[in-house]
């Protein structure tokens, strides 16, 4: 790099993304049945056409045989391609010459043998032939190399971490960046990427259509549009699209919990150039924490809670101490939290609490250390309860791990709730309830070996009636944040997708079995529960079914400890 260029780079942080609108795309006027738009792109040989778009059969007229959907700005006016940093919407709009380092490619191919290859053909065994057929059809647009035509070329980033890190973006419908989960992993600024994303979204919006997802190679970019905000996520985990959309919906809810939907729409009605990132300043931590928690989550996906596993008698005693006096008319929820888990939850007769609202509350508690050291009175919007306004949460920790949360619709209730808290704590201490709960915390997690079921590696059990789940600790080799756990959780996500027919499968399934070289997986849906299991691949199918029965029996016996039941209402 010559001296002047170096100067330019330092001063201006140049970066560019160019959007090409191929005539074929702009003319595409198909309006029907565009609910699933899957744009798949791959690098072509011509450097002027760095990326062309290819869509699935649903959109034959969008197949761009001439002109690219997105291309990098390289060469547009500079004549010095190497100095102009290419812009990239992850594997989507990639710049640079169509090459990646050989070693990189080797890595790119490494995972498919785990995930894609594993469920490819030979190893898949589904409960019924019909299920297999559906499963395969559902898979149509998901995985890369085998149905994606020429293998996509991916820019070689410096960081190994860039792989397997899902990245989340929020922008306004004017294309201004609002939030980015991993700025450090990106060569391109959120400013550029937001512009590109807004334009992509607009191309489809111009046809009264909504872009939902772009699949390119192993990368998937999912979009959620909630004007005035747009959300997108880039992932190469191989999870179904609906998982990413649930994550993005949560990001949206988290933003609403800070700025109500009313405030949001007012701000953007007044000025379409409103810069929301400044309003969210100081609350980004909530978003980062939420996203981090979503990575291996099953509570968000199943819309459930996982309460503290404890003695039900103790739980009842705690709840009894928390029944509020009748004079608190605007009191909504009373929660006792231990180490991030719900001990008990009291609510008014006529309001149940939506799990997502509860997740937002728990996320807020977990993301802020300062909430632990002082008592706090904080306005929060619980979007499923009411997206238009704030309720107020009185938060006070009794110890490092035990917290009380009183949610009220009355913004003047601080003093009376504070006074009530004192009497609540007194009652709880008198019977040593707090101490006993504190002692239950280490007993919360359990090992899968507790069930004494050989070949059972992990499971997630959802009580459909109680809307709660239980699962053992991640044991070796899943105990660390790595490929093994990622693989299992992704398979759970796929099972969940298949049994609930979330990707347009013709019908939900009751039972599904899959086997890869690493593990076997079983999903079983009955009226009272949903069960997702990871098993040793050597286990026979009948042994897998026996293990499922063992879990169901164990849960039935343990139900009182595992789940929160019959909490008082007021």
């Amino acid at each position, binding site marked *: 790099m010559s001296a002047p260029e170096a100067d330019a780079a330092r001063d201006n942080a140049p970066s560019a993304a*160019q959007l090409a*609108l191929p005539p074929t795309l702009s003319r595409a006027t198909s309006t029907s049945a565009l609910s699933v738009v899957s744009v798949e792109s791959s690098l072509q040989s011509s450097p002027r056409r760095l990326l062309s778009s290819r869509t699935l059969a649903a959109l034959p007229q969008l197949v761009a045989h001439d002109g690219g959907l997105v291309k990098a700005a390289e060469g547009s006016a500079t*004549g010095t391609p190497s100095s102009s940093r290419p812009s990239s919407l992850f594997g989507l709009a990639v710049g640079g010459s169509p090459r990646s380092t050989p070693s990189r490619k080797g890595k790119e191919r490494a995972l498919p043998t785990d995930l894609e290859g594993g469920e490819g053909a030979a190893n898949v065994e589904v409960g019924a032939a019909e299920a297999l057929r559906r499963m395969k059809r559902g898979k149509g647009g998901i995985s890369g190399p085998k149905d994606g035509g020429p293998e996509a070329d991916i820019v070689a980033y410096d960081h190994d971490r860039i792989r397997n890190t899902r990245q989340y973006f929020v922008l*306004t419908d004017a294309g201004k960046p609002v939030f980015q989960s991993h700025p450090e992993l990106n060569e391109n600024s959120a400013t550029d990427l937001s512009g590109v994303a807004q*334009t992509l979204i607009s191309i489809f919006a111009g046809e009264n259509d909504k872009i939902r997802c772009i699949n390119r190679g192993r990368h998937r970019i999912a979009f959620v549009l909630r004007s005035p905000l747009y959300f997108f996520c880039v992932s190469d985990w191989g999870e179904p699209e609906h998982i990413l959309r649930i994550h993005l919906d949560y990001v949206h809810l988290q933003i609403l919990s800070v700025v109500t939907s009313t405030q949001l729409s007012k701000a953007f009605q007044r000025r379409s150039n409103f810069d929301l990132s400044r309003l969210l300043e100081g609350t980004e931590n909530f978003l980062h924490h939420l996203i981090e928690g979503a990575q291996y989550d099953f509570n968000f996906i199943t819309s459930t809670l996982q309460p503290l596993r404890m003695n039900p008698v103790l739980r009842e005693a705690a709840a009894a101490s928390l029944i509020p006096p009748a004079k608190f008319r605007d009191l909504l929820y009373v929660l006792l939290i231990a180490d991030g888990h719900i001990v008990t939850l009291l609510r008014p007769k006529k309001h149940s609490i939506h799990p997502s609202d*509860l997740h937002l509350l728990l996320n807020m508690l977990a993301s802020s250390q300062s909430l632990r050291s002082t008592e706090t009175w904080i306005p929060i919007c619980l979007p499923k309860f009411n997206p238009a306004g704030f309720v107020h949460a009185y938060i006070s920790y009794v110890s490092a791990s035990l917290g009380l949360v009183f949610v009220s619709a009355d913004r003047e209730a601080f003093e009376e709730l504070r006074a009530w808290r004192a009497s609540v704590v007194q009652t709880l201490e008198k019977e040593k309830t707090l101490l006993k709960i504190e002692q239950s915390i280490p007993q919360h997690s359990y090992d899968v070996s507790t069930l004494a079921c050989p070949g059972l590696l992990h499971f997630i059990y959802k009580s459909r009636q109680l*809307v709660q789940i239980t699962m053992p600790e991640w044991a070796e080799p899943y105990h660390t944040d790595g490929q093994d756990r990622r693989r299992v959780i992704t398979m759970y996500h796929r099972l969940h997708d298949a049994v609930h027919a979330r990707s347009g499968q013709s019908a939900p399934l009751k039972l599904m079995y899959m086997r890869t070289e690493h593990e076997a997986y079983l999903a079983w849906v009955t009226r009272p529960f949903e069960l997702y299991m990871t098993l040793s691949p050597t286990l026979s199918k009948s042994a897998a079914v026996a293990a499922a029965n063992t879990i169901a029996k164990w849960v039935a016996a343990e139900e009182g400890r595992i789940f929160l039941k019959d909490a008082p209402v007021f």
Partner: protein
Amino acid sequence: MASRKKVLLKVIILGDSGVGKTSLMNQYVNKRFSNQYKATIGADFLTRELVVDDRVVTMQLWDTAGQERFQSLGVAFYRGADCCVLVYDVNSSKSFEALDGWRDEFLVQASPHDPENFPFVVLGNKIDMEESKRMVSQKRAMTWCQAKGNIPYFETSAKEAINVEQAFQTIAKNALAQEAETELYADYPDPIRIDSENSQNYGCNC
């Protein structure tokens, strides 16, 4: 709320095909110029950071295609712009006369909340060409700008980097001035009445 966080400004660059929009942007952001002409297809994005009155400003420059056949993105591009830069070629009367149309197009499509005071900047580009080729006098251009509510006017050369920095500095400054007028209002929403809500049941009967 005096936020010291970076301000992001969305700046739209409009003008006839071939007047030098992309070249101006490239000169400003990358300090480069090429004689070669390549039509912009759709749109192009460039980002540059600068400091205006002690505030760090990120300019998100939206270079649009001047050619009509690419004008299909309209509203989507213009929505939420903080400033609009109108570019013409001083050696082309036609490109100057088109400014009215570009300005109107922008105001219609973007429908800014205060169109009278929306910040525009006009750039007369290619002043490096021979004087004999010049078709639009400075006086004529300035008269037009005055008539449209005193739009700041700069004569630039993307090729020789004349006035480019100054022009964009003014663009940022004017956009920022608008931006500052609407600080975050602290209107507190009405309290929620829980007893007036319909009874809700989400199924979490815990």
